[in-house]
């Protein structure tokens, strides 16, 4: 990683001499590394990124029709020695991570509404598909790989399946109400067969919730008829920055055509899991509607949001379980709430067929 940081800092100083000496890593994940040098931010995109699609997404971000909605890239671009593409951006102030209460929910709703109402025909095409469903599928695949690896790792692997039948597992009861024994569950270490069977049981619930989704929401084929709307594809609070007092959406790596309800579905999933406060959800949704957003209905938004919100619930729970297993830590409260929601989704979709 430090190599990537140094390479990104090099690229910035080559393109923008004097942008800033100190290179601070803002994000470092498998899908991209982001480094800030003073007023300039450099991003090394994923090594497996589709270069043609990325170029199309960057053209959208730079298009005048998206000014005031999406942060525009700086004109210069570069590639690292290993072929990863670098893009440059002006630094913007993010949402304060320690003050989620002060999050700009209304501004976020309005920005998404404006993004969704950009006519795709006004943009330089061809536009790629929004990658939301593909990312959900990837999260589920990652969880499956984690469970397989954990099962293969221990001598008690055979035991892992046995202890989880007939309600013997202390993992989840499907309701946030503590039923006596649930509170005694300790932090798991995957060195124990109990932890492995807990992971396997939770992963099974996530898999059941996933199985009840239609194919398009699992990244198999396209949604419904029509080309869809311009979507961000991976909206969360880390995708907002403030420039001269105005909030903008960043990170176009998953942007494209699709069901705009997907962009509302992560906050919807948080709300449905009991995490996002009703007043924040109402502010977000109200601003989205007021700005003419097409994906929230006029009264009850859930006919539109249900499928994408289920998918985002599964995605979030799957990543939480995979990350917690990798770090050999327990799920935190919020992560548990998402797994609980998967249990309810699975029961409901199996009950109604």
């Amino acid at each position, binding site marked *: 990683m430090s190599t990537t940081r140094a390479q990104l800092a090099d690229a910035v100083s080559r393109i923008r001499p004097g942008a800033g000496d100190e290179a601070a890593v803002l994000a470092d994940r498998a899908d991209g590394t982001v480094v800030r040098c003073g007023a300039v931010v450099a991003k090394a995109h994923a090594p497996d990124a589709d270069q043609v699609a990325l170029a199309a997404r960057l053209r959208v971000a730079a298009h005048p029709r998206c000014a005031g909605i999406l942060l525009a890239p700086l004109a210069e671009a570069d590639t690292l020695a290993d072929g990863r593409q670098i893009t440059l951006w002006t630094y913007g102030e993010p949402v304060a991570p320690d003050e*989620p209460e002060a*999050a700009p929910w209304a501004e976020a709703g309005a920005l998404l509404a404006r993004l969704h109402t950009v006519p795709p025909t006004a943009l330089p095409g061809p536009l790629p598909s929004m990658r939301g469903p593909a990312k959900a599928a990837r999260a589920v695949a990652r969880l499956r790989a984690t469970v397989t690896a954990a099962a293969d790792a221990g001598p008690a692997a055979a035991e892992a399946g046995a202890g989880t039948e007939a309600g013997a597992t202390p993992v989840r009861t499907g309701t946030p109400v*503590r039923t006596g024994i649930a509170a005694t569950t300790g932090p798991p270490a995957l060195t124990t067969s109990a932890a492995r069977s807990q992971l396997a049981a939770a992963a099974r619930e996530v898999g059941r919730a996933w199985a009840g989704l239609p194919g398009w929401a699992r990244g198999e084929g396209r949604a419904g008829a029509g080309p869809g709307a311009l979507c961000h594809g991976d909206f969360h609070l880390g995708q907002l920055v403030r420039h001269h007092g105005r909030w903008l959406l960043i990170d176009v790596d998953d942007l494209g055509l699709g069901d705009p309800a997907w962009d509302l579905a992560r906050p919807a999933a*948080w709300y449905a899991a*009991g*995490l996002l406060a009703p007043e924040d959800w109402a502010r977000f949704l109200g601003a989205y509607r007021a700005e003419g957003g097409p994906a929230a209905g006029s009264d009850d938004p859930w006919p539109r949001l249900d499928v994408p919100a289920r998918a985002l619930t599964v995605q979030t729970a799957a990543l*939480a379980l995979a990350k917690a297993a990798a770090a050999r830590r327990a799920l*935190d409260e919020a992560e548990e*709430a998402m797994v609980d929601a998967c249990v309810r989704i699975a029961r409901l979709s199996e009950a109604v067929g």
Partner: protein
Amino acid sequence: MQCPKCHAPMHTYNRNGVQIEQCSGCRGIFLDYGELESLTRLESQWNQQVPPAPPAPPAPGAPQAYPAAPAWGAQHGGHHGHHGHHKHHRGFGHMLFSS
């Protein structure tokens, strides 16, 4: 019995034949194994008996109704919830910012 959350004493109440422990401090409710199912059963029996009532207008000063939620949604505020006060969940601050 002490409340696992705020450690105030909990008092036992009987609701439709179901024993419920309620905290005298935070008003949180503790259910023993099977009690939630008993309550759910009672609720569904009740729903079968009476036709659905039209939604009542909120009383002055009453907390506003929550926005619509899906059938698989959680009870907002959880079992320890207070109306008008939202519980802060550990880890949610981090989740807000992650893909």
